């Protein structure tokens, strides 16, 4: 940390078209600034609507470093508010997920409604007659949803969520087709913490280059046909495209971009057992094909700035903890009301790769930690960001590069620079 203090940490001295500089991953001053200029300013993903489906259901989440409650009120409206009593700052909820009619502070009993408004407090007369309860509700964030994905922001001036997402919405619609006609529902989540800067995680979902190296042991555990599907680097048919505002898409398996297409394709070997089971249960052939085609997920990763990705068959969420620590959630999704057998396949596929005991995530976590250990040396060396510049072309929205290009990272760092300079 000694040499880094000599490096200028103004944004335009840290992010260049073809490299970034070491303090990006390890300067605590920069981290503090990022929390203010990015996580307090932009739309941050907080939950999926299926995690709190009923009136009064809630779940705890984070916006940057700040603990929030995401809740559905009696009319079904969604509220996101800071989990902090307006009296003496205690959290008003420590249950991760549940259902309630109100939130009550355990310290002096201030009670809040599902919309965050202060309803009642014991012995109010000591505050005098002019105490205004309306001025003492929980601190609320602006909240908007797209396709069940709930985002919140502290910034009253932020553009509407759909404008922030822009061309991303088309890709979200495609991603949600893996519900195979059923609504997409959260089935559970893996959570693990990694000693790494949050931007290492932000980059990773748009990094196909690492896949055959880091995930060799995962690939070896697949049948030949599936291994072929995941050998997208060898096939070279995919691409990465900058979608603006720091977002990007990485298409790995082009034939699985639109899951409604090509339903007559042969059923992959690994899903023949599922197809048989569904037919035995009486599902018509067309629906069986639709479910089986969707069960392994979509053929792309959609990487949103700054904290959520739609990755093949799951949501990946990052929460910055400090400059050298990031919490990760890998959220498994399935078909709400869909066949149990198909959701079981999805759960087992998720367990196979993701989470603390997966065949993939532990190897990811190891290399991410190795980055954080590596940047302790050679602070003056650049961290390369130039892969794929050699033949990047204009795409439908922004620059489009090779499947293994760092185009998506460049998109994220453009946005980073824009926000940090604002």
């Amino acid at each position, binding site marked *: 940390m000694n040499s880094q203090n000599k490096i200028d940490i103004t944004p335009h001295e840290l992010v260049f078209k073809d490299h970034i500089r070491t303090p990006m991953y390890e300067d605590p001053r920069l981290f503090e600034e990022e929390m203010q200029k990015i996580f307090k300013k932009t739309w941050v993903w907080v939950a999926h609507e299926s995690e709190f489906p009923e009136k009064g259901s809630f779940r705890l989440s984070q916006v940057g470093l700040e603990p929030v409650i995401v809740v559905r009120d009696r009319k079904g409206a969604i509220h996101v508010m800071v989990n902090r009593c307006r009296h003496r700052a205690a959290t008003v909820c420590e249950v991760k997920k549940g259902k309630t009619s109100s939130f009550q502070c355990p310290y002096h009993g201030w009670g809040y409604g599902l919309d965050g408004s202060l309803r009642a407090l014991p012995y109010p007369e000591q505050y005098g007659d002019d105490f205004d309860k309306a001025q003492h509700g929980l601190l609320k964030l602006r909240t908007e949803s797209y396709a069940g994905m709930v985002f919140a922001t502290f910034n009253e001036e932020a553009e509407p969520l759909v404008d922030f997402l822009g061309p991303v919405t088309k890709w979200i619609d495609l991603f949600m087709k893996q519900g195979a006609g059923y609504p997409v529902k959260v089935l559970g989540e*893996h959570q693990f913490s990694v000693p790494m800067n949050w931007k290492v995680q932000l980059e990773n979902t748009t990094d196909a280059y690492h896949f055959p190296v880091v995930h060799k*042991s995962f690939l070896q555990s697949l049948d030949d046909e599936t291994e072929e599907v995941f050998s997208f680097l060898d096939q070279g048919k995919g691409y990465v495209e900058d979608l603006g505002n720091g977002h990007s898409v990485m298409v790995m398996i082009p034939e699985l971009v639109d899951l409604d297409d090509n339903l007559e394709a042969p059923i992959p070997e690994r899903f023949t057992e599922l197809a048989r089971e569904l037919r035995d249960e009486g599902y018509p052939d067309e629906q069986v094909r639709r479910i089986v085609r969707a069960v392994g997920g979509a053929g792309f990763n959609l990487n949103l700035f700054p904290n959520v990705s739609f990755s093949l068959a799951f949501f990946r969420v990052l929460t910055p903890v400090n400059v050298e620590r990031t919490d990760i959630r890998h959220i498994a999704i399935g078909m709400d009301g869909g066949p149990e057998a198909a959701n079981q396949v999805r759960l087992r596929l998720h367990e*196979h790769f993701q989470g603390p005991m997966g065949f993939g995530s532990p190897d990811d976590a190891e290399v991410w930690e190795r980055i954080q250990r590596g940047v302790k040396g050679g602070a003056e060396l650049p961290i390369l960001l130039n892969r794929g510049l050699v033949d990047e072309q204009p795409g439908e929205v922004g620059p489009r590069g090779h499947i293994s290009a760092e185009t998506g990272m460049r998109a994220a760092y453009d946005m980073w620079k824009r926000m940090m300079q604002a």
Partner: protein
Amino acid sequence: MNEMIKRDNDSLLRDAEAFIWAEADMLDRQDYDAWLALWSEEGFYTLPIGDGEDFANTLNLCHDDAKMRRDRIARFQQGFSISSAPPARTIRTVSRFVIDEVEGDEVTVRCAEHLIEDKFGRQRIWAANLSYTLIVTPGGFKIRHKVARLLNSDGMLNSFSYLF
């Protein structure tokens, strides 16, 4: 209690303890081929998330049938997984054994596990409740189901390069 039954139960408990201690020793020594041989083919090795029991229909940390167990061990042994080459080293103790049920050839035993891992010069501590469904065979016990429920299974974990 009838003296004879008590002696039988004591000896069953001692046998179960010895079996689970031997398994713990295999896992710390990463003697995974020996570990695989402890299993009954239809068995499941499960690390659940939370308190549920319907492992098939919920997300677990792992829920391995025989093929997944073999694939997992192959991943540990083949040297291509960066997190397991080398893995964290572990030292564990198992204790507080209780026999919950004996029915036919099936014995249900539970116990506590404390494990310390060491990697990158840092140590981490984990605690788990273990539950075993063992089958009595002429060659000794075989595992039909092992459930390792971490104390913080639904909390923020780290990645694991070993088994519980």
